[in-house]
């Protein structure tokens, strides 16, 4: 039976890390990119991921996550390093040449990381993204995508 794979885009990846760090709802909402999410959304994300055996990441996603999160001190710093190391150890990393992203038709709108995610998603079972624009493009390309912001907006505001 083939391994089912899932891509976590940067925004959702950050929610995943913060949730595993048990920073609490205020800790999640303190970060700009995850400011509308709650603990409930983290648990929902866990339930989504549970259907897949392998998380797929790219160097660009890992770099974006680290740039945005690696500012903790003390106990949280230790937790962050431990959790991200564990996730990266258990993930598959896919490398997409930057030139392939800059030559892409959507480069002007999406940028290097998001184009890389679109290209990776063609070979994965699901993309989970909290980037509305990336989700628009992924849907228009017929890719299997879970639009996390759409879900959260429906959950919060009906």
């Amino acid at each position, binding site marked *: 039976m083939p391994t089912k794979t899932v891509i976590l885009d940067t925004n959702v990846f950050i929610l995943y890390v913060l949730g595993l760090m048990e920073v609490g709802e205020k800790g999640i909402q303190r970060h*700009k*990119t995850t*400011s*509308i999410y709650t603990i409930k959304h983290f648990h929902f994300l866990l339930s989504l991921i549970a259907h897949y055996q392998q998380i797929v990441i790219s160097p660009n996603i890992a770099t974006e996550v680290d740039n945005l999160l690696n500012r903790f001190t003390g106990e949280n710093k230790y937790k962050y390093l431990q959790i991200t190391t564990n996730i990266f150890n258990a993930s598959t990393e896919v490398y997409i040449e930057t030139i392939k992203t800059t030559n892409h*038709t*959507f480069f002007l*709108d*999406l*940028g290097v990381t*998001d184009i890389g995610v679109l290209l990776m998603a063609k070979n994965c079972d699901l993309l989970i993204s909290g*980037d*509305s*624009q990336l989700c*628009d493009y992924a849907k*228009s390309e017929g890719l299997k995508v879970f639009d996390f*912001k*759409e879900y959260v*907006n429906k959950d*919060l*505001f009906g």
Partner: protein
Amino acid sequence: MLPLNQALNIVKKQFNEIYPGQTDFRLEEVDFDSSNYCNLTVSILLPDLNPPIGIGTFSHAKKYIRLYKKVILNKAEANIESIKNIDAN
């Protein structure tokens, strides 16, 4: 204190007036601190009235574009102070 739900409804109503063709109004980010103002980043889908022209882009012509806006709302007076364009990336 203005609840977030109510704040968002004020913004949504204003956006419906400014952009009658918009769909898929979304809250993207929020800074709802204890000050008199809250910063909301919202997005909407609009029909693309200026699609790119050329053979290279023909198969990828978009029907909609997503716009991101930063809205500053006065919580005490429940009104919008400003709406600014922002880049998605």
